[in-house]
């Protein structure tokens, strides 16, 4: 992999992580009130997949989509302003954290209805197939979405029509509060694609280089009419389901064993890539430190932008119900 790509993946993950952690204080102070699902720990999936896409390709997200939005090219100012529910946000303060969109960069939307955008991404792929414009669509969903029937309906139809869609399951082992063993008989989510004849792989979702390689391969297959592809990315969210609460056993959201969290902290995707970069002398410590410093600056700027932006005007409550 060329240096620019590797460093680019690192930069994207650092931007996402810094942005996510920047939300913690304003959430705790209740400056941010909309539900925020942080993706700290899962950055490699968004970064690795989206780096394999062109601007015109389509991405559909879910409730935990800050990373998808940034990785697909959405502007951090618009993301942060939306989480602050300001008029300058990407959804003009009407959507909040769970409704992120920027069609100009192919970020087609995200919704908190679990599995709600899987069929939509497939429909975008269907339109690409009809127009023969070689675009690819990606659907990001979690392990919880495997409980919804629409996933199997979509896997079937996408395979039937050989649609250029990549189903990306970010398996973070928890469906809200329920551990995966309490929602599924098998942990092997990638096997869902197999009966439909789809190329299905399980990846280390914290290894951004592995995710990116798999994504490039999947995109290439889709562009050549050999889609769809199913990718299960094993990962872990370092925070709890919603907000900065970590859902640690013993706390009031008594769910995850501290040992498990510690195990995954050691698999941190950013640290993992950092070790690879330094070991192979792809970039220097100084260069990486500069990436972190830039990200801090960008986040600060985005928060200033959001705080200086006004809320949507009261009298504009009824705008945008319909397009005129």
């Amino acid at each position, binding site marked *: 992999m060329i240096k620019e790509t590797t460093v680019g993946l690192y930069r994207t993950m650092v931007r996402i992580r810094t942005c996510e952690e920047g939300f913690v204080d304003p959430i705790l102070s209740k400056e941010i009130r909309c539900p925020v699902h942080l993706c700290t720990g899962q950055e490699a999936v968004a970064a690795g997949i989206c780096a394999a896409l062109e601007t015109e390709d*389509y991405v*559909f997200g879910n409730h935990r989509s800050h990373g998808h939005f940034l990785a697909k090219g959405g502007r951090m100012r618009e993301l942060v302003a939306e989480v602050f529910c300001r008029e300058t*946000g*990407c*959804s*003009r*303060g*009407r*959507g909040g954290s769970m*409704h992120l*969109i*920027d*069609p100009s960069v192919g970020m*087609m*939307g995200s*919704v908190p*209805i679990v599995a*709600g*955008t*899987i*069929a*939509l*991404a*497939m*429909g*975008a*792929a*269907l*339109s*690409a*197939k*009809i*127009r023969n414009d070689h*675009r690819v*669509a990606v659907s990001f969903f979690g392990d919880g979405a495997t409980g919804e*029937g*629409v996933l199997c*309906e*979509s896997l*079937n*139809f996408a395979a*039937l029509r050989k649609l250029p869609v990549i189903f990306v399951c970010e398996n973070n082992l928890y469906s809200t509060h329920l551990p995966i063993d309490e929602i599924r008989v098998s942990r092997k989510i990638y096997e869902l694609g197999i009966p439909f004849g789809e190329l299905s792989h399980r990846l280390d979702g914290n290894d951004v280089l592995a995710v990116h390689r798999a994504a490039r391969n999947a995109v290439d297959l889709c562009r050549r009419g050999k889609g769809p592809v199913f990718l299960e990315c094993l990962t872990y969210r370092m925070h709890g389901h919603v907000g900065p609460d970590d859902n640690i056993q013993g706390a009031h959201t008594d769910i995850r064993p501290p040992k498990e969290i510690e195990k995954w902290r050691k698999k941190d995707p950013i640290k993992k890539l950092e070790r690879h970069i330094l070991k192979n002398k792809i970039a220097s410590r100084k260069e990486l430190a500069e990436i972190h410093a830039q990200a801090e600056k960008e986040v600060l700027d985005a928060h200033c932008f959001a705080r200086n932006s006004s809320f949507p005007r009261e009298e504009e409550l009824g*705008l*945008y*119900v*319909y*397009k005129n």
Partner: protein
Amino acid sequence: MSTKTRRLTYSLAINEAFHQMMSLDESVILIGQGVKSPWYVGNTAQGLIKKFGAERIIDTPVSENSMTGAAVGAALAGMRAVVVHPRMDFMLYAFDPIVNEAANWSYMSGGRASVPVVFWGVINRGGEQAAQHSQALHAMFSHAPGLKVVMPATPYDAKGLMVAAIKDDNPVVFVDDRWLYDTEGDVPEELYSVPIGKGAIRKEGKDVSLIASSFMVGESLKAASELGKCGIDAEVLDLRTVKPLDVDMILKSVEKTGRAVVVDSGWKTCGLAAEVSAIIAENDIKTLKSPIRRITLPDIPAPAGRSLESNYYVKHPGIVDAVVKLVGAQV
């Protein structure tokens, strides 16, 4: 409109809307169960697959949620998609893409994207088909902000409203009634649209307003004809669009006649007739001479057995009886 018209059935009028819109705009696609079947959707899809190919006329597995979602996604990605549910009972599987996704998309994205999709649901009842093959669910969809809902009563409107629904940048639920498919009417050959949100007065009258939609417009016209024989001059309103309602037309008519009877093919509670009644009541019409009446299905699932079925659906004698009771003194 200077154009040639000829007699055409309701179903072929819909078919013509597709032929013309798909020729005009290559982003228009039709997706759903039975579009290549000889019986599923009547002859509404006749000749389409031959002319436009299986890429744009997409027959599907029985996967309403996913297929409807695919239409929504295709619409977000630049197509104008029509998704058909040959029995709208099955459309309940697709409530998520219709109500959660398409209806909300423009609002929750602050107008950054809209969804030009038509959710076409066919009311397909009678013939002892029972509770899950008979339902008229237009009121459920009318409840959700962001959706428009149309219910054409005539072949002219069936074509014109389908064209308008396809051209609209918003999600439109197009509800038709299989009982109308063989009715004939004058339909222009050329492409035209019927404006969404505008009703039509099908018969003028001065004693009572019969406010109806879809199949109930014909029944109301038959009732009006009977009522004329007993000296009651009924006005018949065809709502055409049930969301947004043509409130002006409704209020003007009721102000004039002083009586309102709302006739709907759906259930009573929280139904279309309830909504129309509430609009009339809220507007405090000083000329109102009697209470508003609703003629709807009872709050009972559709039965199978013919003895029950004949007592279930609203037909014109029921409308005549209700109006005569309401206007009673005059007869």
